[in-house]
């Protein structure tokens, strides 16, 4: 039986078959023989999560656009599918032409969150690709990875051949060209990897050696060949208007997490929140022009028929002409009944005007992220939001007819005290009061204030990269306290168990040695860790023990500023000096201004023509 027949047989039995069928609108099936380079794009989570991801759609279109390369998609199958595949001896197949992963010249993983790492191993294993790069032969694919977690590539150093650091649009094509050259010239795998290492923004971990002291702290990290640079500088796309953006994106049959057009209005953020890794990694801020966005929105609507467009970025409220953009999009797409949504509203930039306009089309719940409960705590994390700001925006929202508000907070932040936790409850209570202050006939019925608290995970390239995460018992204690104080009428409290955040903290700041734990945990059956029903914390802890590593070394240890950090060879543009400065200021609860008010000297100003605000001459 061929793959298709076996797949059909499995699809009759599997739950949620639509995740595996393919054939969606706007997917591209190019002729295999006519394209010399075959790229297998792997999203290490389920179809519903992967198909919600914008980056994948960008690169999918970008690779397929080149006449010489084709791109097909792979997703992580659910556990029932894995069992059926094993029983039928069916390898992981692409969504498009149903070819096994091992048939591709290059397979690329997108690293969006650490807790998807075990899925990477599972997908390679199911796809017939040797897990560790040392075991791959001349006929095996080159395995690459990119995305935010690639900024600390070390935990995956044993498994990934080459990492792409920074914006993927330009480097993707360059990387594919090098791999094509290998095929055409018959170069060896080793030669190809050295050529990849010579590309700007590409890190090939096997070309570097690491030394540790007895405690596990890194004492030396250096390249072992001439092609490998000592420091890998991230790639930055400077002009988003000139950069590829898809005009057609696949439209799934089945509902996915974000089933809509995502219009990336800008990249980066000028706020400088100290806990936010994305805010540091995606610097500098770059906007797409209004003309470009309107053109894209119309084209994407015509090619997808979606009912909703979400304006996406780290901080959409900061887009310079947001009200104009929204007004124009609504004017052009009103007859088509397209609604516009802003997923990450920053409370201090929500304009009343745009609020009213969004609501005209669709009234969803409004999200605010004060992140911390007291002004002191918000100053520590440089979240430039005051209580008055928040309450004013909330009042506007309630007066504008909203009755459902979500408030996002973190627990376990550096220097946090009980007072800061109580502050969360105070804020929630004040939000409730604002609602009741609006006259009954003016406000919408059914007040619902949802307070969500997530556990803080210190991340590389943030001022908190040296800090310890709270221990699990500490976090549980804080959550218990929050449960008590948030027992307020009209308020609903959401929290997550801290185990996943603890593991995330281990891998976020992990070194190469932790790769062994990942492999061991996978062998012991850990997969789909991001899903509560499949997450097995105890097994993970066993894997740590069996590998002789202490997870607390990674999660709960305060690092010395002198220490060589596992990601020190990656240049994100942000300097350690800046991060240390920010750390000192945070300890004194001193804030740093928004880059739009002047450059803070984060390090990017060193790169000519990269940051528009630095070049404005305010250093």
């Amino acid at each position, binding site marked *: 039986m061929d793959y298709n027949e076996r797949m059909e*047989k499995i*699809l*009759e039995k599997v739950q949620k*078959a*639509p995740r595996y*069928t*393919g*054939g*969606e*609108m*706007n*997917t591209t099936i190019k002729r295999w023989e006519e394209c010399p380079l075959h790229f297998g794009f792997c999203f290490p989570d389920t179809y519903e999560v992967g198909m919600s991801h914008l980056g994948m759609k960008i690169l999918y279109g970008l690779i397929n656009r080149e006449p010489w390369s084709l791109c097909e998609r792979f997703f992580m199958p659910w556990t029932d599918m894995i069992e059926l595949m094993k029983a039928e001896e069916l390898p992981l197949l692409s969504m498009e032409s149903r070819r096994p992963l091992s048939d591709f010249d290059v397979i690329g993983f997108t690293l969006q969150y650490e807790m998807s790492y075990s899925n990477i191993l599972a997908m390679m294993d199911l796809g017939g690709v040797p897990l560790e790069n040392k075991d791959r032969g001349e006929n095996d694919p080159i395995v690459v990875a990119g995305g935010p977690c690639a900024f600390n590539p070390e935990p995956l150093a044993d498994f990934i051949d080459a990492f792409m650091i920074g914006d993927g649009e330009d480097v993707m094509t360059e990387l594919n060209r090098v791999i094509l050259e290998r095929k055409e010239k018959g170069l060896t795998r080793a030669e190809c990897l050295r050529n990849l290492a010579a590309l700007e923004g590409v890190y090939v971990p096997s070309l570097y050696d690491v030394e540790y002291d007895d405690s596990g702290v890194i004492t030396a990290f250096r390249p072992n060949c001439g092609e490998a640079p000592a420091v890998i500088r991230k790639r930055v796309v400077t002009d988003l208007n000139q950069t590829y953006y898809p005009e057609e994106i696949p*439209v799934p*049959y*089945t*509902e996915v997490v974000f089933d809509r057009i995502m219009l990336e209005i800008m990249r980066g953020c000028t706020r400088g929140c100290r806990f936010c890794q994305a805010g540091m990694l995606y610097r500098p801020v770059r906007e797409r022009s209004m003309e470009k966005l309107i053109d894209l929105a119309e084209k994407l*609507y*015509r*090619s*997808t*028929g*979606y*009912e909703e467009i979400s304006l996406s970025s780290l901080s959409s409220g900061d887009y310079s002409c947001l009200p104009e953009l929204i007004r124009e999009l609504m004017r052009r797409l009103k007859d*088509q*009944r397209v609604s516009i949504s802003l997923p990450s509203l920053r409370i201090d930039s929500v304009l009343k005007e745009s609020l009213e306009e969004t609501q005209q089309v669709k009234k969803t719940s409004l999200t605010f992220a004060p992140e911390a409960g007291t002004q002191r705590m918000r100053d520590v994390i440089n979240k430039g939001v005051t209580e008055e700001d928040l309450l004013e925006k909330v009042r506007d929202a309630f007066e504008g007819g909203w009755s459902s508000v979500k408030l996002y907070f973190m627990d376990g932040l550096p220097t946090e005290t009980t007072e800061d936790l109580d502050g969360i409850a105070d804020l929630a209570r004040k939000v409730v009061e604002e609602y009741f202050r609006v006259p009954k006939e003016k406000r919408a019925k059914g007040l619902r204030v949802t307070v969500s608290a997530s556990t803080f995970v210190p991340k590389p390239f943030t001022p908190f990269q040296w800090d310890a995460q709270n221990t699990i018992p500490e976090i549980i204690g804080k959550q218990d306290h929050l449960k008590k104080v948030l027992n307020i009428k009209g308020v609903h409290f959401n929290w997550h168990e801290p185990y996943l955040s603890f593991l995330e903290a281990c891998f976020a700041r992990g070194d190469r040695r932790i790769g062994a734990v990942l492999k061991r945990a996978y062998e012991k059956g850990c997969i789909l860790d991001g899903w509560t029903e499949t997450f097995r914390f105890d097994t993970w802890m066993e894997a740590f023990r069996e590998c002789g590593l202490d997870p607390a070394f990674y999660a709960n240890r305060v690092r010395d500023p002198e220490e060589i950090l596992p990601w020190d060879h990656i240049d994100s543009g942000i300097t350690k000096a800046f991060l240390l400065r920010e750390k000192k200021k945070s300890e004194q609860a001193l804030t740093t201004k928004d880059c739009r008010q002047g450059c803070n000297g984060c390090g990017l100003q060193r790169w000519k023509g990269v940051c528009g605000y630095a070049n404005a001459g305010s250093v």
Partner: protein
Amino acid sequence: MRMLGVFEKGERIRHIGHLDIQRSFQRGLRRSGLPVAYSNGFNPHILITFASALSTGACGRREILDVTMASGVSEAEFLERMNRAMPPELQLSAARAVDDRHPSLMGMLCAASYEIVLRDPDCAEKLIPAIPAMMAKESVTATRKTKTAVKECDIRPLIYVLEGSGQSIFATLALTEREACKPGMLMEALSREAGLDREIRTLVIRKELLGKDEEGKLVPLEQL
């Protein structure tokens, strides 16, 4: 004006459920740029109905959708624009413009013809010879599963045609809003008749939706 469209649900997407197919057509119509009519209200949607929901797992050769247009458009243009807007697995083969007063397809639907492909090679030898005996019976019981209960019912009067050839069974079965014999019910009864007591792997292809003409003859629904 309304437009009836005859479409195929391809084998690759046979596991896509009816709600998802509906949504695909909603979006396809939006992509097509055709002048469709929207419902009023807070969540406007295109006025579209289907003659019959096709079960998950089955493919369809001549399924029918019924769209209310906001202004006139030719059948040829409808067909051409829809086929550009729909994926390869959901292409249209015919379109027919009808008056707003045209009766609802659902109400006119009487039966459907099916090809049931037997996926296990030795099944056909046992099942096909059992057809005459079953058809000779006055009543044939099968179980009908609804959301809340499992009921026994007599499907014999609901089977209009039943034949076998090669690896396939061909059947015309009643399908109205009141009563229906699903291919699964038929296969359950037939395998009991043939003394096969294992699960049979099949591919159900709904070939045509049928209504009754003035003489009471079964004819393709879209032609009525």
